[in-house]
């Protein structure tokens, strides 16, 4: 097999360019506004300006990045850089912003290549090809970045570079890249515990003497804090203002569309209980999509500290496991810790967006290449996780593209995993039954709801179904994969499959 990495990069880029005229969400206007703010206003106004409702709420590196883009944008169409020019979207603006996402995906491409290399996969192997395919043509990124509109490619690129450096034992580079990433988008803080524990255990505490251990800590702190100094330095006088923009706790427990997590089930349970007990709904309904705040009628109200406590609590076991794992296995456990930290925060976090599932799905792609069981879990979550992104693409013109891209990716994923792990089996019976439900939801949304005349009466039911049903899958994955990662098996199944995996590995070698 040839090294087809750059071929795939080309094909992916082609697909992205084809998507340029597709519907884009308000995030397009958000980023146009940030271009305008950073270009037209002095630094001390960036985090103050409120001309548009889409105020700057990413950390300063991302603002600098927008400023950099605006230096090119002024030659393309200077009118997009006017702060008052709300909802401006000339053809040139669309092309410029779309192409800027495609161009900065180069960072992602480099991150993918670095990570696949760090896992010890040779470039002419099936694993390398599969990994390139799953990551470069990732349907989640296509949905969120190239249709909905965001710059996740850039951010996950930096994350992958950081992961790659860490696995290659270039600890300081890894810490530096991760610190830079945090200054682009602070949501990655949720993954910081995995990085912190790993660096502490396998970099600082691995040193021969106490002195060199202290030296390592100092080096780590210097490397890790420098990006913060550079980033927040210019804003030190207005730090509280900046931070209030970055952490807006006034938003509710769940987003307008419930991300498929624990709170989606909690909200749904509250609805059901309210219906059963005939409790009057206190004001605006949670599913109307108009309000940000959720008021529970029966179940106790949830405050931010509760969500943080739960998130931290659920991160703890895998972090302990990571701390105690032998050095040889540590990269694998680290990747699982990244996945599970991301998943803990997704499941229990405050005001989680559905897009955040990418923080779980993308690192899982790496794990699925090297281990048969991880691959199985990755596949299960892939089905539910990518499906849960559909509400982002609600434009009627996107129905066929979204389903066909999704189906193509899921089928391709199965094909590639089957090639890597001969005899790969996706699901067992119960999981199969669950997966069939994903056929029923579109069937209801596009056909049954009209036949039953429920589309006017319950317009948000398809969203609710998508959210709650995907949440079941996400929680199932979370539980099952957590136990697996901790080495707690439900029986002999895990052992049997891992020995068969080893047998297959031996077989491949003799080939």
């Amino acid at each position, binding site marked *: *097999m*040839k090294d*087809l990495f750059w*071929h*795939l990069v*080309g*094909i992916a880029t*082609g*697909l992205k*360019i*084809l*998507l*340029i*005229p*597709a519907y884009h969400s308000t995030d397009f206007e958000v980023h146009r506004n940030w271009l305008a703010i950073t270009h037209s206003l002095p630094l001390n106004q960036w985090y103050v300006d409120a001309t548009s409702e889409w105020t700057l709420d990413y950390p300063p590196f991302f603002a600098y990045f927008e400023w950099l883009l605006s230096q090119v944008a002024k030659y393309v169409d200077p009118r997009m850089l006017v702060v008052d020019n709300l909802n401006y979207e000339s053809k040139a603006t669309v092309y410029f912003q779309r192409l800027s996402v495609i161009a900065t995906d180069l960072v992602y491409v480099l991150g993918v290549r670095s990570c696949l290399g760090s896992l010890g996969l040779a470039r002419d192997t099936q694993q390398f090809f599969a990994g390139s395919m799953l990551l470069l043509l990732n349907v989640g990124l296509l949905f969120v970045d190239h249709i909905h509109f965001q710059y996740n490619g850039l951010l996950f690129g930096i994350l992958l570079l950081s992961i790659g450096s860490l696995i290659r034992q270039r600890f300081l580079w890894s810490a530096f890249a991760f610190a830079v990433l945090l200054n682009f988008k602070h949501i990655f803080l949720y993954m910081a515990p995995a990085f912190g524990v790993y660096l502490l255990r396998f970099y600082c505490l691995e040193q021969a003497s106490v002195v060199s251990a202290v030296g390592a800590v100092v080096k780590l702190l210097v490397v890790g804090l420098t990006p913060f100094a550079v980033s927040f330095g210019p804003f030190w006088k207005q730090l509280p203002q900046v931070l209030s923009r970055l952490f807006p706790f006034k938003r509710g427990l769940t987003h307008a569309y419930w991300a498929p997590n624990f709170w989606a089930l909690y909200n749904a349970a509250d609805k059901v209980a309210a219906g059963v007990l005939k409790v009057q709904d206190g004001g605006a309904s949670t599913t109307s999509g108009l309000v940000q705040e959720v008021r529970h009628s029966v179940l106790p109200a949830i405050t931010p500290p509760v969500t943080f406590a739960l998130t931290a609590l659920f991160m703890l076991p895998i972090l302990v496991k990571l701390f105690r794992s032998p050095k040889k296995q540590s990269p694998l456990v680290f990747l699982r810790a990244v996945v599970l930290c991301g998943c803990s925060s997704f499941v229990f976090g405050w005001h989680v967006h559905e897009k955040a599932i990418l923080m779980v799905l993308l690192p899982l792609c790496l794990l699925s290449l090297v281990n048969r069981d991880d691959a199985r879990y990755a596949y299960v979550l892939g089905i539910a996780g990518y499906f849960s992104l559909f509400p982002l693409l609600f434009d*009627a*013109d996107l129905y*066929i*593209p979204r389903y*066909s*891209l999704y*189906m*193509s*990716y899921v*089928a*391709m994923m*199965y*094909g590639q995993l*089957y090639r890597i792990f001969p005899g790969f089996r996706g699901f067992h019976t119960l999981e199969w039954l669950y997966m069939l439900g994903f056929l029923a939801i579109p069937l209801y949304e596009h056909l049954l709801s009209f036949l039953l005349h429920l589309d006017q009466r319950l317009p948000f039911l398809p969203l609710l179904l998508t959210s709650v049903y995907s949440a079941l899958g996400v929680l199932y994955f979370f539980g099952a994969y957590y136990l697996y990662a901790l080495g707690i098996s439900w029986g002999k199944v895990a052992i049997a499959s891992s020995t068969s995996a080893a047998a297959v590995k031996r077989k491949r070698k003799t080939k």
Partner: protein
Amino acid sequence: MRSEILASAFLGLAVRSIISLYSYSGFDSPPMHGDYEAQRHWQEITVNLAVGEWYTNSSNNDLQYWGLDYPPLTAYHSYLVGRIGASIDPRFVELHKSRGFESKEHKRFMRATVVSADVLIYLPAILLLAYSLDKTFRSDDKLFLFTLVAAYPGQTLIDNGHFQYNNISLGFAAVAIAAILRRRFYAAAFLFTLALNYKQMELYHSLPFFAFLLGECVSQKSFGSFVAQLSRIAAVVLTTFAILWLPWLGSLQAALQVLHRLFPVARGVFEDKVANVWCAVNVVWKLKKHISNDQMALVCIACTLIASLPTNVLLFRRRTNVGFLLALFNTSLAFFLFSFQVHEKTILLAALPALFLLKCWPNEMILFLEVTVFSMLPLLARDELLVPAVVATVAFHLIFKCFDSKSKLSNEYLLKYIEPISHILMISIVVASLTVPAPTKYPDLWPLIISVTSCGHFLLFFLWGNVQQFSSKLS
């Protein structure tokens, strides 16, 4: 393997639905609009008028305004689609008043009808043909073939972008080819008749079908079985025709009127710049000054038949599977290069066999397929489809390269030199046409250069195809 086929199928569907987001032929350009309006107008006519009036000029059916000029199966299809459209919104097909109707919902509806044809006919058809090829050759190329055929940008850009339903006629033709490969001759005759009755351009494929089936009849052991088989095939074809043409068979005049609509001699030897011989000759020797239209039609028919004779005679005598595909390729190229009233889009008929010949001559055919898209660029550029055309073609090439490890390296010197030259030539023409404006004296300079360059390629490929068929060791 099956999951990968599924992945390719859905990727093909995804690309089609994404191309559907782009503009279409004649968007927002009254009074005549383009092919999109033509198809909508046919729905309007077929839904509102009695069957007998579809092809005749009347106060309700102005044939000067996109009069129906495709065979009955297209008309029935328009009727079916028109009825569905009318149930969504009657304004889509209101007689007279709906002319030039455009709206977001209507575009979505029209695009969906093309994608449905892709899902129901074209994609299954090419999948069947890919499987049939593997079965007859006992090989395992179906993933490679199916992926490339599904990703071929030419058909997608014309059908889902520009707006046509080539996928239906090409789909029927593909199933007919598969039937020939599986030696199901009656099915082949039936399906090809359907294709021919959807678009008369399927005549480009007709001679090889005729030669192959006739050869099969002649090779029967006894005269009796020869007559029996011939009459059975003839019966299949004639019955199919009769059923489809039933509404117009009442009078000779009505049938002739339909025929007259299908072959409009008056429209001249070519309309826009097209990559065939006549358009190229016209550059140095103005045809219209020297030859009348009717004479020209005869010259075209003669040249086309002469050019397609050798390959079909050979097929008649030596009926192999590769030979059949090659004959389809050669004949459709002969028709494209020499016949009367050729459109740029009809190169898709030559592209269909070429896509499946990728199996035997991957490097040659991929170049040919790229040239076919190149030859349609002026048309696509008018519909604002230049960016997707270029991007999809590059992606097509890369997808091919992903499978390339399988294909044998070509050791033909001819191709070794021609391929890089062609690529450089095409790329520089595209770049130049975008950067250098055409002189005011020759506003059509770039389309003409593209046509002539493509024509040169097609001539070379026509010769190559004939040489391959006569010297073929594969068949």
